[in-house]
């Protein structure tokens, strides 16, 4: 039988045999989603390596907490999460099991990116589950506004500089450069979207709010009766009526939802049904933050024409 002494000695021996994290030259960063990884890559350049847990075409609310993610997390110097409880169903057990003190909630290597962004739809008053999977802290799909992308990138650059002080000016320079490129791209995007100002759209899930605000679109309804609740026949009928009254001709669907209900809404109302990308990596050709907006704006232009 294992005695206490043997046990303690075993632990100490193991701790000595397996040296703790070697001070890595490159910061190793894990992000919850591909969008955070894309922004981190913009400001981190070649001084970091970054990996995302959820894929761009995956519903970020429902990711399986696979042990293979632990292999990334145990080595990470920094974990960047979207926050606002988006990852609440799968990330906490991964953090606990990672055995990595640096990325525990509240440690220096844990960064909640939502603190930098403009958050919309923060519920007022009492939140109950009768409202569906409503996020009590506000809509977590905030990265779909380029201004928020800039704010988050700035926050990440500051955090990278904090973890790697010698490279902090490098990260700041990269951020300045990103800022310039986003501003230029924004001018182009705003101009492209200007003719469609005030157009009405319906989305499957409530993930389009920040995009709609930035580009002045009007989201009049959702295919889901409540966030996270699958479509019901009565809600679908109501939505069809609403779209006809409001003359809404576009239904946007996230790549991870079934197209059956949106298609029947489309044929009942004459609206186009398009799969838009809420995240980088949703399609193979969309590999960075800029291409995400290029793709979606192209899609919307085609949809509105």
């Amino acid at each position, binding site marked *: *039988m*294992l005695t206490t002494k043997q046990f303690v000695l075993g*632990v100490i021996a*193991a*701790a000595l045999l*397996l040296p703790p*994290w070697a001070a890595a030259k490159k910061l190793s960063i894990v992000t919850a989603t591909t969008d955070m990884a894309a922004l981190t890559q913009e400001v981190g350049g070649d001084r970091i390596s970054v990996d995302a847990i959820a*894929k761009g*075409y*995956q*519903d970020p609310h429902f990711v*399986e*907490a*696979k*042990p*293979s993610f*632990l*292999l990334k997390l145990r080595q990470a110097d920094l974990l960047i999460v979207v*926050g606002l*409880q988006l990852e*609440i*169903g*799968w*990330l*906490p*057990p991964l*953090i*606990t099991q990672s*055995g*990595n*003190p*640096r990325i*525990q*909630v*509240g*440690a*220096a*290597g844990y960064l*909640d990116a*939502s*603190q*930098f962004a*403009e*958050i919309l739809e923060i*519920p007022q008053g*009492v*939140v109950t*589950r009768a409202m*569906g*999977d409503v996020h*009590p*802290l*506000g809509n977590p799909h905030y990265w779909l506004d380029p201004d928020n992308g800039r*704010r988050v990138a700035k926050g990440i650059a500051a955090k990278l500089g*904090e*973890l*790697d002080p010698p490279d902090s000016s490098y990260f700041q320079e990269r951020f300045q450069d990103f800022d310039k490129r986003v501003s230029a791209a924004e001018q182009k995007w705003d101009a492209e979207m200007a003719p469609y100002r005030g157009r009405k759209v319906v989305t499957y899930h409530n993930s389009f709010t920040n995009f709609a605000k930035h580009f002045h679109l009007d989201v009049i309804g959702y295919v889901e009766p409540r966030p996270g609740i*699958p479509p019901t026949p009565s809600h679908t009928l109501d939505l069809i009526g609403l779209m006809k009254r409001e003359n809404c001709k576009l239904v946007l669907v996230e790549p*991870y939802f*079934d197209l059956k209900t949106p298609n029947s809404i489309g044929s009942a109302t004459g609206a186009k049904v398009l799969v838009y990308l809420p995240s980088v990596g949703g399609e193979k050709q969309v590999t960075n933050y800029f291409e995400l907006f290029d793709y979606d704006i192209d899609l919307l232009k085609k949809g509105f024409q």
Partner: protein
Amino acid sequence: MKKAVIAVTVLCWVPLWGQQANAPDLAAQNTALEQRVRDLEERLIAVEGKIRMLQSTQAPAQPAAEAQPAASAAEPVPPAQPQVPVEPAATSPIQGQSPVVNTGGNLPNYGGASSAAKALNPDISVIGDFIGAAGNSNVPPLATQQPFPSLQMHESELGAQAIIDPYARGDFFISFGEEGVNLEEGYITFTALPAGFVAKVGKMRSAFGKVNMMHNHVLPWVDRPLVTTNLVGGEDGIDDAGFSLERILPAPKGIFLEATGQVFRGDSGDVFRAESRSDVSTVDHLRGYKDITESTNLDLGFSYARGHNDATLSDGSFGEFVTQLFGIDATVRWKPLRRSIYHSFVGRGEFIWSQREQLPSDQHAFGFYTSGDYQFGRRWFAGARFDYSDRSRYGNLTDKGVAATLTYWPSEFSQVRGEYRFTHYAENRDSHEVFMQLIFSLGAHGAHPF
């Protein structure tokens, strides 16, 4: 005088110069003003963010320098001020600790809205498990199966979970039957140990295989497999007070290897029984996991448990008899990421060998179950299970069975399940039973490990 003239001249020219400048400068001024508004907007958003973070971490008035235990429902966030420590282990105790309100697994939950009001409370959840049964159970006297009554509030599980300090978190699961109360699990997990170790101390479900770790509400069935009831202590299983140490082991790229070692007092249902302080039991588990593709993965485990049992000598006193259990578990999962909320498949199997020392002769028993569960809609699951198991005390008696389940989720927070079960007992008795189960969950219940 001369000075005055110059002054007047200058004064006269100033407005003129100002007027000249005005026209072309208007645009520039506007731009400057717009820029200022934008800057203010940015500052406002930054301040809002900081307030959100502070609200979710809610520093207690005192002791100011101590880490505050979890706030409530909020996502955790380090305060926005620069954190000096760069050293990995230097988790400053001043930083706000936050709540890991985890949810997910089978029945995910979200915390409430008023995070400030509940700032220091743990996440509290209650999960109700109601079971109705029909058909003949026909359980022979020597069998281990516990028949379900016709209608039963089988279990109400109260969970309280919070981050304790920057180095640990605590989880309590108290299960209320219709009559008694039982501490199902209550342990502290040390998450900030050096060299990647994670330690737990308290009472916990041991890491013997898969089903033994599962709470009732995450099982893919209403009941537990025959091999669990016959060889591993049934519903409570190997659930004991002690400590556990786990670590991810170095392995070839892409393979996840984890070893767990546990030492318990040695009292677990009818499996282990400690007569003296030296009768501690141990459970060891080695787990290997690999992603075959992004949708498919394979999970393999090897378990070993050893402890003293309740076999008696001829004079009625407890002998130094030992039970050893060996287990292999295998799980195949498939879940296409693009349609992950609609379709999935889980195939499981556990194979367990038991060696029980007792008089007049040691008993060797073997048992297994295999099962498959397919999700064919966003809310619908169908499954089947095959059971085969000897009994640990009577190695020559073998029970067999099959079961089929159909599960529906009205939402992520409730679940309705029907199960048909056929059992053929070693005594040549058959039973046909139908179960209906309703599981419902309140509050913020932590996600269970994958």
